[in-house]
């Protein structure tokens, strides 16, 4: 702990160019999202296991679909990937950022608030792109044949985008109002419940009578949109509409109740 030469600390203040700040922020957010083993479990390991397990064990589980199993499950697991990152990971990370005063600290740095948000958004889409690559690769390895063509891909991407808005706003609403530990528990629990019974991996038709109500959940709606696009090249209009409604509702709630500190 030596002393510095005089002049070392002479003021020379200034903000880095905004692009550099946002790039640094996005890189850091991405790195931290991927570093956390628990998040990685939720983002990659569980979806891949669900896909492989579902395809291999469909018969034994008594699952029957109109299409080939892998063609139904892969779009659903892609939807699960969106749910895991934009809702669960985002909510948990944001909850602890509030707890540890990060958002306040960065609020006193040259990084503007929209730069902070932009960094988060870039990190979210980066992680989801990685998930999509891994899940699709596993799907292809299991014999997945998407039938939707370009239109189907556009439908799926639009659905993923709307789903991200819906889930991210709901996740931020939760993280912005609950304590960090409560957010951690609730975000994981909701993820598991929606994965098993939310119409995301399995179409609502698999759940028997009365399950049509799942189409009104953001999870069911996103699953339907992904399946309609990637299996049939159609657009599930109800699903899109439901996602839009959830995105608006979530944004209103987050905007009203989210506290940065």
């Amino acid at each position, binding site marked *: 702990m030596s002393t510095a030469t005089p002049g070392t600390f002479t003021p020379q203040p200034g903000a880095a160019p905004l692009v550099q700040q946002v790039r640094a922020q996005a890189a850091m957010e991405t790195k931290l999202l991927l570093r956390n083993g628990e998040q990685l479990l939720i983002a990659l390991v569980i979806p891949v296991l669900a896909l492989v397990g579902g395809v291999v064990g469909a018969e034994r589980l008594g699952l029957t679909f109109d299409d080939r199993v892998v063609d139904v499950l892969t779009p659903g697991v892609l939807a699960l990937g969106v749910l895991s990152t934009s809702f669960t990971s985002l909510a948990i990370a944001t909850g602890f950022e509030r707890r540890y005063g990060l958002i306040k*600290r960065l609020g006193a740095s040259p990084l503007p608030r929209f730069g902070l948000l932009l960094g988060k958004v870039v990190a979210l889409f980066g992680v989801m792109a990685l998930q999509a690559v891994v899940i699709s690769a596993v799907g292809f390895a299991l014999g997945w044949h998407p039938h939707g063509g370009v239109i189907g891909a556009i439908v799926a991407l639009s659905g993923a985008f709307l789903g991200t808005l819906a889930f991210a706003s709901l996740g931020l609403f939760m993280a912005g109002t609950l304590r960090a530990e409560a957010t951690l528990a609730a975000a994981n629990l909701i993820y598991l419940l929606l994965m098993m019974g939310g119409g995301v991996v399995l179409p609502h038709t698999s759940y028997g009578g009365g399950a049509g109500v799942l189409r009104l959940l953001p999870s069911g709606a996103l699953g339907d949109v992904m399946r309609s696009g990637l299996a049939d090249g159609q657009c599930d209009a109800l699903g899109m509409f439901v996602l839009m409604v959830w995105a608006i509702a979530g944004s209103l709630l987050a905007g009203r109740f989210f506290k940065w500190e």
Partner: protein
Amino acid sequence: MPESSAPAVEIDGLVMRYGDKVAVDGLSLTVERGSITAVLGPNGAGKTTTLETCEGFRRPQAGHVRVLGLDPVTQRRELLPRIGVMLQSGGAWSGVRAEEMLRHVAKLHANPLPVDMLVERLGLGECGKTPFRRLSGGQQQRLGLAMAVVGRPELVFVDEPTAGMDPAARRTTWELLQELRADGVTIVLTTHYLEEAERLADMVHIIDRGQLIATGSPEELTRGSSATVRLVVDRELPADAEAALRAAVSTWSEQHQVGLQSISFGSRTLEDVFLHLTGRELES
């Protein structure tokens, strides 16, 4: 007033309330550039609220605040790159490594200090790879200080900088703050350590219950009013000297009809000033 010659901080009649509770009650003070200014007061005196208002986190409910000649709320984007802020606690991702966090904050600035130098100066090397949530309180404080200065700011706000630090780390922190001042950086620190204010500060503002109760250099404050007499002797006094001195002074006071309020042995410190000032307020 042109921005370049404006005082580092000007607070005029600041009032801040949380519900019914008045946190800052008509506070006015000025911080000159290139100085270390301590805002001293007990917990709950309104120090952090005042600092956070200067940092633009809170909007003054009454009164005015100018920092480097700028309004911290409406001109925040202009102001923030020029100041450094050390929060009282926290300020990082829970899983980020200490050194990684410092490098990140450095990247947000145009001309950051060399990160390695700060890591070495503040003894962060040993915990550079440790996730933030596992750092000790003192290590988190040192990282917080490093993050506050890495952008080469003109003005640094440090909130309780040495709370939770061991004596060695505290000394290192004091040295760093003194070097910053020597290089022309203005420092505003809050503390409830009287020794810290006495050792470091050029100016001390004592705050209690949201009000300024004394201002001055440590020397001015500890010199006290004209009624304080200080006796310095050239050797250690025998055990009975204190009683004898008290008796002699009492006799002299009676003869000259001087009301003797107290006799203390040892030196007057900021602590004396503080207790005197806050004690009187408690009685009133």
